[in-house]
């Protein structure tokens, strides 16, 4: 069956620009997570949705980062005024419910020049 889909797979943007990263979770999964992964490190939590609402956004680094999931399925991670330090792989994962295995997409590699 279809797994978690993330688009685009690669995104290059200039410093100061706005970007949107999209995640299509596995159908029927109510839990959706965003993580960020830098080279040689483990995934770092950003935000977690249960249905349409953000159950935990404590990992968002600052107010330039925002994520939505308006219909409880597709989610968009939005980054304003991008900085070179935002360059990383942004991973999305979905789960059937809370405290169930996360299934990851292949990520969006964001490069800010």
């Amino acid at each position: 069956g279809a797994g978690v889909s993330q688009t685009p797979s690669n995104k290059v943007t200039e410093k100061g620009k706005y970007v949107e990263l999209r995640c299509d979770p596995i159908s029927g999964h109510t839990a959706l997570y965003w993580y960020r992964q830098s080279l040689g490190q483990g995934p770092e939590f950003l935000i977690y949705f249960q249905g349409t609402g953000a159950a935990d956004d404590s990992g968002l680094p600052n107010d330039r980062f925002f994520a939505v999931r308006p219909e409880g399925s597709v989610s968009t991670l939005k980054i304003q005024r991008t900085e070179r330090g935002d360059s990383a792989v942004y991973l999305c994962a979905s789960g059937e419910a809370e405290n169930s295995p996360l299934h990851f997409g292949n990520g969006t590699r964001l490069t800010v020049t």
Partner: protein
Amino acid sequence: GESVGLHLPTLSVQEGDNSIINCAYSNSASDYFIWYKQESGKGPQFIIDIRSNMDKRQGQRVTVLLNKTVKHLSLQIAATQPGDSAVYFCADSSYGQNFVFGPGTRLSVLP
């Protein structure tokens, strides 16, 4: 998982040998643990999970051991194959909270 710095630990094993990858976690309230395998350019792939009411769980060629007393988790891979070469992460969660990932271990299988 614990953050132990930027250098990724590496484990090299001979093809056919058993591998043991270790992980320490810091949250004593964690009750659910997962091992992931990540290949280059891909997202983490689920291998096996264990809940805190168990101390051992076996899958196909893999075994996870949980020691809650010392907050330690291990992944054992039997008869390691070249396709097992990847970075392995442990992740832990307390119910209703996000998963915290460890720094990862790179497994290199030698021919």
